[in-house]
């Protein structure tokens, strides 16, 4: 197991290296002269030349990449053109916000998705099955940014129950420990802030979690149906076990691998969905950071953020693979 994890981590490193080369080249393909962008429209030739020298833009491409790589390995992605702050610091500041949102969205998606999938499979071809699978089809066809807008319209504007966006109301502050607001507010026994955080989390999580929920429900249903027709389930029933034990212990545990795979992929892909959801709910996470960087043509920031996301996606996939071994003892690495 240990050697497997080390091997995978090395693979991730190689993959990140490749991603960084491609992103680096892509960013350099962008038409326009970065020196001119920084120096301004009316800069003289001398100033432009000086700029190029200062930023190493007059060196050959491979040398520029090596310099960038040397700093990146020390965790220095450079400074943002827009804010002049260190990019890694900015990313690390925003990442916990995206993480908390994604975790909450995934919690919502998997509880409801798996439950619905199990009931649908057990009560196959009943009204419940038809309605939930139809809704799941709706879920995967839904533009999530529109769903977000509709949720705001209903719950924030018409019913006035939940905030329209943001992370925390202005009159609360949370002492940062883990940087996950829900946990930090609980540790510091700041219940007002805890409730407020929860209120801010609900709508974005539902918007972000709907597509994964629909996928998980469909996968759970088909995976459970597959397992339920197996001989060992018939044996379990014949032994006189209660239906609940048969379904929850014998069937679900065996159906879990495909469910976990799809949940893992979906969780990794949430980082993409977060771009849209965070924009709607003005959530100060990585998604809004990337949109902001793209709009400002802040290339070092785009580059840093994309590589960071690739790293997180790879880690999530590794985590899912390790989880397999715990769920299914037949799997050895």
């Amino acid at each position, binding site marked *: 197991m240990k050697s497997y994890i080390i091997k995978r981590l090395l693979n991730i490193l190689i993959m990140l290296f490749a*991603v960084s080369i491609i992103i680096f080249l892509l960013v350099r393909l962008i038409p326009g002269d970065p020196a001119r962008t920084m120096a301004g429209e009316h800069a003289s030739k001398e100033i432009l030349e000086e700029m190029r020298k200062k930023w190493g833009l007059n060196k050959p491409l491979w040398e520029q990449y090596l310099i960038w790589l040397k700093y990146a390995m020390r965790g220095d992605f450079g400074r943002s053109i827009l804010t002049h702050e260190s990019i890694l610091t900015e990313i690390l500041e925003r990442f916990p916000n995206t993480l908390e949102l994604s975790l909450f969205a995934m919690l919502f998606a998997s509880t409801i998705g798996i439950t619905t999938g199990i009931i649908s499979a057990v009560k196959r071809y009943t009204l419940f099955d038809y309605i939930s699978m139809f809704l799941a*089809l709706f879920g995967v066809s839904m*533009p999530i*940014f529109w769903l977000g807008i509709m949720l705001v319209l209903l719950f924030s504007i018409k019913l006035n129950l939940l905030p329209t966006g943001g992370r925390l109301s202005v009159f609360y502050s949370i002492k940062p420990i883990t940087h996950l607001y829900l946990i930090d507010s609980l540790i510091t026994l700041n219940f007002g802030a805890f409730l407020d955080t929860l209120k801010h989390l609900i709508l974005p999580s539902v918007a972000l979690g709907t597509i994964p929920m629909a996928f998980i429900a469909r996968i759970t249903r088909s995976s459970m149906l597959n397992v339920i027709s197996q001989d060992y389930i018939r044996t379990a029933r014949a032994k006189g076990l209660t239906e609940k034990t048969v379904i929850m212990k014998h069937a679900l545990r065996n159906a879990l691998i495909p469910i976990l795979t799809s949940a893992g992929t979906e969780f990794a892909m949430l*980082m*993409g969905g977060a771009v849209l959801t965070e924009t709607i709910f003005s959530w100060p996470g990585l998604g809004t950071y990337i949109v902001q960087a793209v709009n400002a043509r802040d290339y070092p920031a785009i580059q840093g953020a994309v590589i960071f996301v690739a790293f997180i996606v790879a880690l999530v996939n590794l985590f899912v693979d390790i989880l397999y071994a715990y769920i299914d003892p037949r799997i050895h690495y």
Partner: protein
Amino acid sequence: MEEEIVEEGKVYTESFLVESIRSLKRNRSALVGLTIVIFLIFVAIFAKAISPHNPIEQNLYDNLKPGFWAGNSKNLLGTDEFGRDILSRLIYGARVSVSTGIIAVVIGVLLGSLAGICSGYFGGWIDNLLMRLTDIMFSLPSILLAIVIVSVLGRGLSKAMIAIGITYAPQIARVVRSETLTVKNSEYIESARAIGAPNKRIIRVHVLPNVLSVIIVYTTLSIGSAILDAAALGFLGLGAQPPTAEWGAMLANSNHYITGGYWWVATFPGVAILISVLGFNLLGDGLRDAIDPRLRKKF
């Protein structure tokens, strides 16, 4: 189970096309999808004839007017912030969204199939290189990859199509590669090679027709999500640019209007996206089951 075996037997007696159409006809949800898609294409083609107003004509005296529910018979679905007729914009938007979805997927399918066939047929370093490239592309969420590509290519509808197309290429490349691998080792390819047919001819005459069904299924299944992605780029201001009537872009500023109570500005474009994506998804699912039920596992 028995039925399926009987159906499989029919493949030998009836043409592939006839059998596929028959299977599609029996599938009620696929027919619903087909109806939606035909309706969309009809609307897109005859947009000029059926839309009541000019979609980009501004009329600032009539801005943010509610529609038929408030007794407005001139603008049935109301008007937006510039007084443009929302219904007309939706009708013209069908043109933009449907064509964007289709063109983006075609770009992806062309790139992906080419890569997949080369990878599977030639193997070796080409295979290695192309597959590592797909690994890298899979390491990023597709919409994020599309955003990065658009930021390199520049904003705009045509660039959004290319960006989305590129993000769809790796998946089709993988599937086509594995299909090619199975075809490659068959006897008829071996005999074609034995009589000295060049690679180009073997690929065109023997490999391509055999992987075509996978490609067709993938194409229809992907159009829905391509429409979604194009709308997302439009929503972020990276796809279709104003004043083009595009469903995603129509939602871009709607956040400001729902707080003012102008809900119709934000509601209808989303409904249009939802219905058309649903239509393409239903049709794609049905087509997959009709052409090749084995593909259920792959898509």
